[in-house]
């Protein structure tokens, strides 16, 4: 044992010794206890420095007699840690106020033991001399309780609270308490993935991480508020909590298997839905109905695209909860970069309904902000299964757009866009604009306004004559420039694909450099 001796305050903070209450105030309890010894009421015998003198039985009248004062004095002179006495229940004989004063004056705490004194003394001896025995017993009981069945994190906390006889709480990844529990102590670091034993104002809290699915982060924390606790008891509690983290991980793994099986089924059906194969009462449609998808009626789809590397399955519950919390009655399906969802109603959604939905989705985004950032796109309302397919596609497109639009709160509703604008806006995304500039790059360094000529030619529907008229040059000049353009860019202006790509590139670069048009 290299540990410092536990203090009296820590010892009586232990559940096994909780039957002892200080009768002479809370001062003088922070002294090391080196042992426990039994004395008789008349003569103290030999008591060594730092020992708790336990008087297992006292005669009637003793607690109010001068003898008690004399024993207090003798124990003080022998540097005992405390005097422990059996005290009867309420209404029984009690220690005189004068004796309590004397104990305070002489700095010798009196403990009143409300249980069988010898049992208490035995427990105290065990905790002072071999604290590992109690720790091992609690760990054994924890093992038995935790392996009885599959326990949710809250169930694990309850089971461990019963074993530690102290409150046990679950904290979220960032240290926020989940459910009714105590607050994490100051000094708790949710980013340090290690068990933390924190003592503030004499109270010790042990916090242990439950490793998350991705390494290096805590999925959850288990915490126990021990109160005053010796170091050995805190370490014992840590071991018990760590046994609890295994149970929590087991629960998480099992839950994930269920989620993934469910997700696979939904992904299959969703694929069919996107490809328009869920019409007309076949078996697939029936399965969709079985998992609660309504395909008839008016549908409004939206898509939440997670930004950055996000473990989708790990957050599916939270996304569904956030959407439900905003009173959006939607089916949610994991999909590639995020979650697609739709609401279904009997009537075509009006302006108010879509405004409400947008506001609600913005709040959903805020709710999820603690976990990840996301972009949300919303499609228009359409009827029945085929309409749902269309709305989902619009929502997905809109979500793509919303990624690049922090100014709209990364929330885009397809209703607000003309299709053409949509196309350009889509092409203007960060991915296409550099490509466009690079595509037209070879024309920049050449004489003869080749970019303007190309743009005018494509706007004019491929008519060289109209182009010459617009630019105010000869028709042959236009033809020569077009040939040079084809050479410089290695393109064929008769090829519709090339024309489309070049047309978009011209429009995007014009938008980006309006002065050079």
């Amino acid at each position, binding site marked *: 044992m290299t540990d410092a001796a536990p203090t009296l305050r820590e010892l009586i903070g232990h559940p096994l010794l909780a039957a002892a209450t200080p009768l002479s105030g809370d001062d003088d309890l922070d002294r090391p206890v080196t042992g426990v010894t039994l004395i008789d009421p008349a003569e103290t015998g030999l008591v060594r420095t730092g020992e708790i003198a336990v008087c297992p039985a006292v005669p009637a009248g003793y607690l*109010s007699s001068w003898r008690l004062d*004399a024993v207090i004095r003798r124990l003080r002179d022998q540097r005992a840690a405390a005097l422990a006495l059996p005290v009867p229940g309420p209404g029984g004989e009690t220690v*005189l106020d004068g004796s309590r004063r004397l104990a305070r*004056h002489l700095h010798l705490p009196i403990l009143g033991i409300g249980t069988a004194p010898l049992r208490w003394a035995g427990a105290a001896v065990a905790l002072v001399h071999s604290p590992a025995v109690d720790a091992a017993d609690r760990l054994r009981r924890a093992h038995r309780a935790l392996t009885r069945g599959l326990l949710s994190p809250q169930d694990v906390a309850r089971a461990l609270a019963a074993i530690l006889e102290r409150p046990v709480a679950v904290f979220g990844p960032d240290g926020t308490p989940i459910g009714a529990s105590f607050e994490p102590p100051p000094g708790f670091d949710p980013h340090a993935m290690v068990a933390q034993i924190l003592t503030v104002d004499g109270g010790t809290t042990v916090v242990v991480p439950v490793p998350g699915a991705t390494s290096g982060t805590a999925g959850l924390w288990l915490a126990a508020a021990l109160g005053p606790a010796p170091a050995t008891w805190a370490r014992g509690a840590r071991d018990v909590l760590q046994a609890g983290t295994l149970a929590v991980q087991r629960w998480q793994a099992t839950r994930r298997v269920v989620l993934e099986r469910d997700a696979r089924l939904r992904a299959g059906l969703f694929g069919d839905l996107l490809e328009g194969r869920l019409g007309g009462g076949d078996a697939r449609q029936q399965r969709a109905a079985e998992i609660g998808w309504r395909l008839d009626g008016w549908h409004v789809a939206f898509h939440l695209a997670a930004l950055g590397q996000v473990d989708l399955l790990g957050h599916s519950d939270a996304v569904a909860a956030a959407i439900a919390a905003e009173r959006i009655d939607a089916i949610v399906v994991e999909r590639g970069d995020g979650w697609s969802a739709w609401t279904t109603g009997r009537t075509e959604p009006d302006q108010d309904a879509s405004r409400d939905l947008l506001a609600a989705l913005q709040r959903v985004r805020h709710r999820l902000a603690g976990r990840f950032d996301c972009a949300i796109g919303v499609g228009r309302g359409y009827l029945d299964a085929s309409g749902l397919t269309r709305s989902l596609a619009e929502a997905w497109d809109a979500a793509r757009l919303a990624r690049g639009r922090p100014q709209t709160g990364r929330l885009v509703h397809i209703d607000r866009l003309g299709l053409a604008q949509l196309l350009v806006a889509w092409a203007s995304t960060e991915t296409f604009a550099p490509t466009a500039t690079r595509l037209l790059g070879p024309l920049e360094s050449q004489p003869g306004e080749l970019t303007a000529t190309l743009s005018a030619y494509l706007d004019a529907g491929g008519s060289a004559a109209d182009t010459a008229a617009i630019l105010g040059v000869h028709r042959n000049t236009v033809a020569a420039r077009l040939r040079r353009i084809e050479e410089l860019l290695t393109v064929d202006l008769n090829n519709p694909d090339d024309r489309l790509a070049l047309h978009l590139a011209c429009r995007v670069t014009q938008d980006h450099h309006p002065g050079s048009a």
Partner: protein
Amino acid sequence: MPIHHLGEADIGHLARGATLLGSGGGGQTDAAARLLLRVLGGGRVSLLSGDELGEGHVVPVGIVGAVSVFTERLPSGGEWAHVLAAVAGRTGIRPAGLMSIEAGGVNGVIVFAAAAELGLPVVDADLQGRALPRLDQMSAAALGEPLTPLAIGDAGGRLLVLDGLSAPAAERVVRAALSEFGGWAAIALRPIPVARLHSLAIVGSLSRALRLGARHAAWTRTADAREMAASLGARVLVTGRVVEVVRHRAATGFGRGSVIIRADRGGTLVRLEMENEYLLALVDGLPVASTPDILCVLDRAGGLPVSCDTVRGGAEVVALHLPGPPFWWRPEVLHAVAPRAFGLDTDPVAPPLDHGRSETGPCDHSPARP
């Protein structure tokens, strides 16, 4: 002997001194002092030493029983002749004088009233040197001398004569009979030869009471407690406030109690264990003084003694340790008055005081250094 008579002017000092020797018990002396004043009627009573009395016997007299009842129903005067005649008739001895059974409390005063009524001198001695509760705690009894024949009686003619009984037996019988006498009775014990006073009694105790009382009368509101204590030959145990008084009513015997005084300075706690008298003093749990020495609790403002019956929480007091009669520290008698005689399971505490003091001048000791 500096004192040969006791007159009206001495009654106040006698009462004060007897109260101090009472160690918190022995009864309130003021009623006895008023009675004595009335009985003296301007006259005086001889107070003689044994040598001055010469030959013959003295009869120890006093009252036994409940002091509170004594205050309600004072002696009428006729009781002394009854009990004295009964003892004289039994022994065939005519007393040459009276002595007090107990110098502390009421009995240190009442002996003079009895002497005035009977026209006898008082010899400067008693059987306790202080106040003690039981007949078997008489000095002669502690030495194995018989107290009987003894008589208890009242002015109405009720009389109980005991003979051939040991002191503890006499104590039990008298205690049991007292209710028939209305709570208290006059008592006269077996006469003691003047020649044996020095060995059987505590001599000089009444003059000690007078001297103590005279010095205590000088106590003023502005007096320094330590100096006053020194003038009484006492030491200050504590100056402070009574924080707790506990009284336990015992099924048999006298009720027990504790007084806890917190010192003004340093927070020291002094606990006095009491029965009828203050018996044991503990300072911070350590016994520092006990019977047979005398413990007094005085009201701090006026220095008036506070008895065991009247002490209560909140009082500002001074607790004093006054040397007890050296007689009782003799090994052959100590057991009779040591703390264990009162059920306090601790050895008597020999204080850091000079116990070899002279019989005649207990107040002349140099001040004790606490």
